[in-house]
């Protein structure tokens, strides 16, 4: 087997060598740190040919992994990286993320207004300078049984509705659940809960607990629970991905973004402090905002891109995730909520 791998490596190396003439070795290299599916090889090759450069793509699987790769060299090992707006804050704080020039990325003009107006996206602008360009996102909408609902539910409040007691599935996560509870109670800043509001929100979450069948962690688990227990409502922490899974399992479901708006993560491109050629890195960002490249993201990965309106998110309110006021506190409270503490104890 190792021999086979070795052979494949040799052939790949040979192909690389054959595709790029010797002079290419002397060419400039762009170092991209990103997530699976964000920089597919065929698209990377297109960029290389167009700009006569070499692109090194490194793939990470978690926020922590990305942090360790970037923070260990203070960003010196990469030119451009993809990060969500909440995570972006610590990169700006530590100086690893550096400002970029949106004017140098003309394709931002193609983006939907909600993405091109950087000042309206929390966390991207600091001290008047832009640190990132949105690339892809996923929202956390509400999945419902189309037989049980003549008209799609329009508010997250439906999850508290006693008529659906025992038929609601909720995600098992402290940070998002508190944000959701805050949204449901009409908050406009679910990421910054005032100290005095916690007991009210906790009791609200106890009410939610009393109404749900149970809590899930993984999308597959949610699908299995939904199918086995005749659930009618499901908080889609994994968004469109869960819609796909459930439809594959044969569920007759709809997917909505309620009027409160949906929590959503937004991955952006940001420049690293170690960027050797800022212009080239900005060219890369510009390239990913071409229709062909952005559309591939949606087609291949099922993720929403920033050029085309997704049918669900159209006109809907998306609330980009931000760092929360105190995630440890949310976790402590949530552990007691899910363990079954009675509301009087909050």
């Amino acid at each position, binding site marked *: 087997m190792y021999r086979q791998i070795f052979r494949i490596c040799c052939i790949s190396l040979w192909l690389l060598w054959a595709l790029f003439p010797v002079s290419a070795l002397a060419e400039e290299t762009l170092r991209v740190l990103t997530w699976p599916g964000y920089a597919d090889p065929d698209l990377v090759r297109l960029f290389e040919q167009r700009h006569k450069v070499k692109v090194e793509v490194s793939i990470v699987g978690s926020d922590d992994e990305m942090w360790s790769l970037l923070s260990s060299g203070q960003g010196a090992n990469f030119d451009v990286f993809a990060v969500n707006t909440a995570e972006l804050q610590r990169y700006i704080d530590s100086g690893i993320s550096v400002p970029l020039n949106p004017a140098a990325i003309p394709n931002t003009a193609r983006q939907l207004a909600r993405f091109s107006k950087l000042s309206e996206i929390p966390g991207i602008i600091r001290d008047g300078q832009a640190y990132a360009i949105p690339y892809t996102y996923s929202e956390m909408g509400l999945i419902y049984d189309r037989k049980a609902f003549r008209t799609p539910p329009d508010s997250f409040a439906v999850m508290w509705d006693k008529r659906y007691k*025992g038929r609601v599935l909720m995600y098992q996560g402290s940070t998002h659940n508190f944000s959701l509870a805050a949204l449901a109670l009409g908050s406009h800043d679910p990421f910054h809960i005032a100290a005095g509001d916690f007991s009210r929100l906790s009791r609200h979450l106890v009410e939610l607990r*009393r109404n749900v*069948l*149970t809590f899930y962690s993984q999308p597959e688990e949610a699908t299995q629970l939904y199918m086995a227990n005749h659930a009618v409502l499901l908080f889609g922490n994994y968004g469109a991905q869960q819609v796909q899974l459930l439809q594959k399992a044969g569920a007759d479901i709809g997917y909505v973004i309620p009027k409160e708006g949906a929590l959503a993560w937004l991955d952006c491109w940001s420049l690293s402090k170690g960027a050797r050629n800022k212009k080239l890195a900005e060219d890369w960002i510009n390239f990913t905002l071409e229709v062909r490249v952005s559309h591939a993201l949606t087609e291949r990965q099922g993720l929403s891109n920033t050029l085309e309106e997704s049918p669900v998110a159209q006109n809907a309110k998306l609330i980009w995730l931000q760092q929360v006021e105190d995630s440890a506190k949310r976790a402590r409270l949530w552990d*007691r909520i899910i*363990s*079954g*503490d009675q509301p009087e*104890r909050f």
Partner: protein
Amino acid sequence: MSESIQKIRFGITFKLGILLAVFGVLSSGLTGYYTYHTTREILVNEASRDLLQATQVMGRRFSILTNEAAKDALVYTKIRVMQDVTGQGPAAIAARQAVADQFKGLMTEHPEYFQVRFISARNNGIELVRVDRDGDSIRIVGGSDLQEKLHYPYVYETLGLAEGKVHFSRIFINREVGAHAGLQQPTLQVATPVVKNGGEVLGVIVINVDLNHMFDMLKADLRDEYQIYLTNQNGDFLIHPDRSKTFGFDYGRRFLVQDTFGPVAEIVKGKGDSAIVRTQVGGSKQEVLGGFARIPFGDQAEHRFVIFGLTVRLDMVLKGMTRLAENSASIVIAFSLSAIALAVLLAWVFVRPLKQLVESVGSFSRTRELSPVRVRSRDELGLLARSIAQMQEHLLAHLNELNMRKDVMEYRARHDVLTGAPNREMFFDLLRFAISSARRNGTQLAVLFIDLDYFKSINDTFGHAAGDAVLVAVVQRLKSAMRESDAVARLSGDEFGVMIQPAEDSDGVAHVAQKIIDALREPIVYGKITLKIGASIGISVFSADGDTPEELLHNADAAMYNSKRKGRGVFCFYTGMQ
């Protein structure tokens, strides 16, 4: 020949010895090695079977323990006081107190139980009776510490079960805040519904089983060198010697048994009930042997199972092999040494007769004498020895004949066939020898050249036979006329040479010459006829008339012609001026 014998550097003794020794050492070494190897395999296979059996026994005990927990839960659904536990009045409070005391008793009896509870089907699954283990004590939890549990599968699923059925949970890490000793511990839950006489479901009895305690119990019978593993149906480790490898799925990582122990994948896939593994674990080169078995538990219809595994380091299994290896090694060494000794002995026994033969042949070629061959064996070597002796005899006979022939030839080459007198060649040799001795001793010698008179006419008149008879007679008379030290030779036809030595003076020589003339003047009787001849003699003397045989004979010849001229029948000394 003797040189070529010495040239043998590595004799056959050496080669044969080495060959036999190598053969002996190799055969004993290989036998030892294969015995060791086979024994090792047998030991490993036996150990694997034992491990698997131990695993299965442990698994059955695990099933029995979980079933006992299930039985305990079922027993309490039947007690009278359970029926009153859900109410509000004082009777209900008393009933809850009574049930709590009973649960406490159960937990005292079973140290592997973390928690025994009665959870109501109403009020969001509020706990009505809850007894927790908390350190060394057992605590009855009440009031606002009681929690609502309806959203947990062990409650809502059990509520849906028929009376007498039992719900077995997954094995999980208990994260329910307030669970006391059971918090953050691997737990198995056993739950069963409590049904009122009328058929209404009142709630569930739940027993939380301390998995680690259970495994400590199971492990108690095992020796320390065994490692114990438990995984769920997917192969995720629940028990592992390295705690950090357990419940990986709980925090987003997977540590799967099939990644460490490949063959166990078959159990996970449902293709087998057991697997034997032999692999290296961790970064170390340490090889381990293990048995893994599928252990069903809970309700059979649900096909729930866990995978049990036991491993042990291979070197522990093979501890006895070290002694076996040592024994094998010493046996191999002993056998090798005796093989070498035997080889030397064999080589000696085989080569000694050969050496004797070589010696015998050698001495034969040196001395040309037959020496007895002392190889008397009746085998090929004996035959060889006898053949060589026979060959030597033949050779010797041939040699003797050849020598004889040579002597005859040599005699013929130096003697006149007719008369037996030395010929001219030999006369020269005799002269040469005599000259050198005369020169040494300072003596003189004389050479007489004798030519027969009237011989030609006898040959012509009476035939060659008569001539031959005359020549024979002449030689006889010459010999009798002379001393022992003198020599007579037939030089050619009717010419004869005589050497006198030492010749003291010319008178002595003259006397001999006269004696010869007289002797040859006597008639020779040949059959019925009488033949008459005479002799003319020329004399030369060493060293006065020459110091080489040729010179002396030549001068004597010259003197002989002088005699012929004087009228035959006389002798003349060489005078130098003829």
